[in-house]
């Protein structure tokens, strides 16, 4: 496998992106840039209470406000079902409560929508919101997941006793307890993986236009997966055939997971458009984005790790409280279970593992996938665990890693908790060694020792991670998650037009990754045509095959493989037609460099453009051959893919102020075959920035009453350019045999790897003070307090 592209011209080259001209000139159309004739504007009244009953809503004053067309409350949409929870934890009961278009009698987080104003302008709609009178009946609140499970905590939903969404486990509890009992040392640590707010630069938005003549909805939304939006809205919320709705996702201004999900506003605009008979649009404000778009992470984990004196890790046990917010988002229970617990083994051979995840309702915003989705949380636990073991035993954290690594000859490797999947390929030590060489590890330790003698605190931190992406074999996802029962294959349609120009329709949906370039690189190389002859289309359900969209770093390892498979069949058909044109036996011709020629007589041949024209006009085709070069592929991967690598952070901590300076950041990633190094590096850069930001700065804060304190960019600590040094990147390239391209996926590695590297570095810096752990974010205040406490 993975041999087809060895003659690659474009695959592997730093091709600059074909989508960029429209983005750098301001010509690209994001959802708020669309001009719909006669559009009316929707503004949503959101709860300022984190937990309250709604006694009643008086909209009369708002309805008579200038410019207002209509005002709606949840009662107006009682006929619509609540949104579905499409991925639930397996092997356990899920107590599912999901949002409605507008909540009717109760809210469980600040930001829940309870009424909507439709007006001629956005300003008129927003002005009228202030005239709606709601009889709020506030209830007791709880915002901490662990506290919410304790007796006496306020209860959010009658159907979820103890506020528990689900209590899930994986691994062997008895074997893990025994291994812990037998271990030379057992290290215990409580770890908080704080809540993050994805904060794509473009907020969400949705627009809808209902055609009463055909009874068809057209819904635009800023989404990573428009086909899934259509499926969830039609089949589960509206109860209408999929054919009665078209979903379009225009240019998307960043998402990082937060635009996977079906949100109440998308249902709302569709339903309002039908009621009013005109197009309507809602564009999220940044404040709404912080309150009402999903958040990520928010775990409290009790970790126990057992080891022998020589550093061999023998057992790992984690009990995690996963805060899922006041109500469930689309795939919320799947993230802290399948994508977290099953990856806790990391890059190490650990004979006994057990993970228990308790998903919990609290009076906070919805929590779901955010870049990495479960794997950053797992990587944080295992990479901190290794450092804690090294510290306990007085060993070098690099040597403990090396000692426990899964060796290259052990692949495919079954960690025992992956529900039947195995890690595909890996050379963990190779990536580690390369990173150590770049950072000059021995040199750093000498510098660190010298600095310590001067009273300066330098630290180095490692993250030798593995992650799971290229999601996912449909049968596996069906076995590891309960829900709507859909798969996770991907579709592609490839058409070679009469002129030789190629149009690819992919079920993937980019939001900054450059699919139009990378996918075109593969097509151009496979067919032997210029890059500019390929157009990649995405984002519209009309007339296109169903597709699952982009998340879980799946668009190269699944979406692009679907394109590749369609191309193989197109090449086979082109070869048959060319043989007919050349009056040769199909066995005697070969497709190479954009031409089908006779073996042994390469000057006699037909170009793909000539063949495409012949196929399109259909004047003279082989017996039984249909016209046109057109093929659709539905590719279901046999396994996920498992990128890996080593990230190293070097920090200096100011012991007087607690300030952490990130001095160097080295990343050696192995994402399998690289289609476009420019784009892969860009993905890694952005991922590192988000992961470092979790370690040092970012965190959503709710006060005890459930008010989101970090509800704008003024309070939420997004990193700026000057927060970072220039990142030092390199790669190893270990192909996977999961797919014929040998690609693994590159969208999330940076985020997954970087957070523990930075925390490990800060803890390493403060080791002389006896500090073994500080919870994130490692703000100056937290670090200073830890130092003061250690000195006391």
């Amino acid at each position, binding site marked *: 496998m993975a041999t087809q592209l060895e003659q690659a011209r474009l695959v592997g080259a730093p091709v600059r992106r074909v989508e960029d001209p429209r983005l750098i000139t301001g010509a690209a159309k994001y959802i708020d*840039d669309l001009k719909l004739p006669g559009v009316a504007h929707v503004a949503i009244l959101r709860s300022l209470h984190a937990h309250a009953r709604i006694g009643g809503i008086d909209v009369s004053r708002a309805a008579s406000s200038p410019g207002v067309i209509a005002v709606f409350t949840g009662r107006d949409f009682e006929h619509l079902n609540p949104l579905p929870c499409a991925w639930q934890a397996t092997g356990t009961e899920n107590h599912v409560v999901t949002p409605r278009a507008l909540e009717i009698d109760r809210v469980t987080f600040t930001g829940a929508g309870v009424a909507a104003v439709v007006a001629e302008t956005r300003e008129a709609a927003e002005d009228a919101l202030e005239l709606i009178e709601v009889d709020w009946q506030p209830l007791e609140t709880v915002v901490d997941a662990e506290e919410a499970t304790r007796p006496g905590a306020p209860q959010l939903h009658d159907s979820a006793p103890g506020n528990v969404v689900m209590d899930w486990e994986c691994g062997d509890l008895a074997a893990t307890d025994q291994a812990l009992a037998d271990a030379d040392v057992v290290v215990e640590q409580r770890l908080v993986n704080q809540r993050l707010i994805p904060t794509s*630069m473009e907020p969400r938005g949705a627009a809808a236009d209902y055609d009463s003549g055909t009874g068809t909805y057209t819904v635009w939304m800023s989404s990573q997966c428009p086909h899934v939006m259509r499926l969830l809205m039609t089949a589960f919320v509206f109860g209408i055939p999929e054919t009665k709705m078209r979903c379009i996702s225009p240019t998307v201004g960043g998402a990082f997971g937060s635009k996977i999900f079906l949100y109440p506003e998308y249902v709302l605009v569709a339903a309002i458009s039908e009621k009013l008979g005109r197009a309507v649009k809602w564009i999220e404000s940044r404040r709404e984005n912080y309150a009402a778009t999903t958040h990520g992470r928010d775990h409290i984990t009790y970790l126990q790790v057992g080891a022998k004196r020589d550093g061999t890790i023998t057992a790992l046990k984690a009990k995690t409280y996963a805060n899922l917010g006041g109500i469930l988002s689309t795939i919320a229970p799947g993230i802290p279970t399948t994508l977290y617990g099953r990856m806790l083994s990391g890059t190490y051979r650990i004979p006994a593992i057990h993970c228990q995840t308790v998903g919990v309702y609290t009076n906070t915003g919805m929590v779901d996938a955010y870049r990495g989705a479960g794997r950053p949380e797992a990587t944080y636990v295992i990479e901190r665990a290794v450092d804690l073991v090294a510290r306990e035993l007085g060993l070098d954290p690099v040597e403990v890693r090396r000692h426990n690594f899964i060796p290259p000859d052990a692949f495919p490797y079954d960690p025992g908790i992956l529900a039947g999947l195995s890690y595909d390929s890996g050379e963990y030590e190779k990536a580690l060694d390369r990173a150590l060489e770049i950072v000059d590890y021995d040199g750093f330790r000498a510098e660190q020792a010298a600095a310590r003698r001067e009273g300066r605190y330098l630290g180095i931190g490692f993250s030798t991670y593995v992650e799971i992406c290229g999601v996912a074999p449909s049968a596996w996802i069906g076995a590891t998650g309960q829900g709507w029962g859909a798969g996770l294959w991907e579709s592609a349609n490839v058409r070679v037009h009469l002129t030789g120009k190629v149009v690819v329709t992919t079920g993937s949906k980019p939001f900054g990754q450059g699919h139009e370039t990378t996918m075109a690189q593969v097509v151009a190389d496979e067919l032997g045509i210029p890059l500019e002859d390929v157009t990649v289309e995405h984002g519209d359900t009309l007339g296109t095959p169903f597709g699952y969209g982009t998340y879980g770093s799946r668009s190269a390892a699944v979406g692009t493989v679907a394109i590749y498979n369609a191309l193989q069949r197109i090449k086979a058909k082109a070869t048959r037609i060319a043989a007919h044109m050349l009056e040769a036996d199909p066995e005697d011709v070969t497709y190479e460099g954009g031409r089908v020629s006779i073996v042994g007589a390469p000057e006699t041949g037909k170009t793909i453009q000539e063949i495409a024209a012949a196929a399109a006009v259909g004047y003279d085709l082989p017996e039984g051959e249909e016209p046109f070069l057109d093929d659709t592929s539905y590719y279901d991967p046999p396994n996920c893919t498992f990128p890996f690598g080593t990230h190293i952070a070097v920090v200096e901590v100011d012991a007087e102020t607690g300030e952490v300076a990130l001095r160097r950041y080295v990343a050696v990633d192995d994402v399998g075959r690289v289609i476009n190094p420019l784009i892969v590096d860009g993905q890694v850069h*952005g991922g590192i920035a*988000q992961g470092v930001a979790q370690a040092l700065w970012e965190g959503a804060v709710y006060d005890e009453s459930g008010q989101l304190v970090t509800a704008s960019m003024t309070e939420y600590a*997004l990193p700026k*350019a000057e927060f970072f040094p220039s990142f030092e990147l390199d790669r190893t390239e270990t192909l996977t045999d999961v797919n014929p391209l040998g690609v693994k996926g590159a969208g999330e590695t940076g985020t997954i790897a970087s957070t523990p590297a930075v925390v490990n570095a800060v803890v390493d810096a403060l080791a002389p003070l006896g500090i073994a752990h500080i919870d994130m974010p490692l703000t100056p205040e937290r670090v200073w307090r830890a130092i003061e406490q250690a000195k006391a």
Partner: protein
Amino acid sequence: MPTIAITVNGTRYESDVEPRMLLVDLIREELGLTGTKVGCETSQCGACTVSLDARAVKSCTVLAVQADGAKVVTIEGLAGDAALHPLQEAFWEHHGLQCGFCTPGMIMSAAELIAKGPLDEAAIRHGLEGNLCRCTGYENIVKAVAAAAAGR
């Protein structure tokens, strides 16, 4: 409603505006130039940055009436008669953008930064503090601005 006259990308417009109308809304909604983005409404993100009388401003915190008589350049007009401005070329060449939403504002800020004088990496990073990007980690934005500055 007050009437204002404003020159945007070389074209003079006269418009009746509500006193509370923001410059960004005038540009996007009245003039239909949607390249300028709204990302936060609180002057944090810089996606709405335009050139106002040769100064980079966040157009979400300027009232349209304040721009009466001013010359405004948006991302659509930055290149003038050329196909692309050198900064646009540099962002393309160095992969200085991913989703592209922050890019118009980022480029408009960088254009002013370069016009002000010589730049090293630290000065670029500091100079872009008013523009947030969530995709790139700023790495290639800094490279692109440095390349454009070097070619100045």
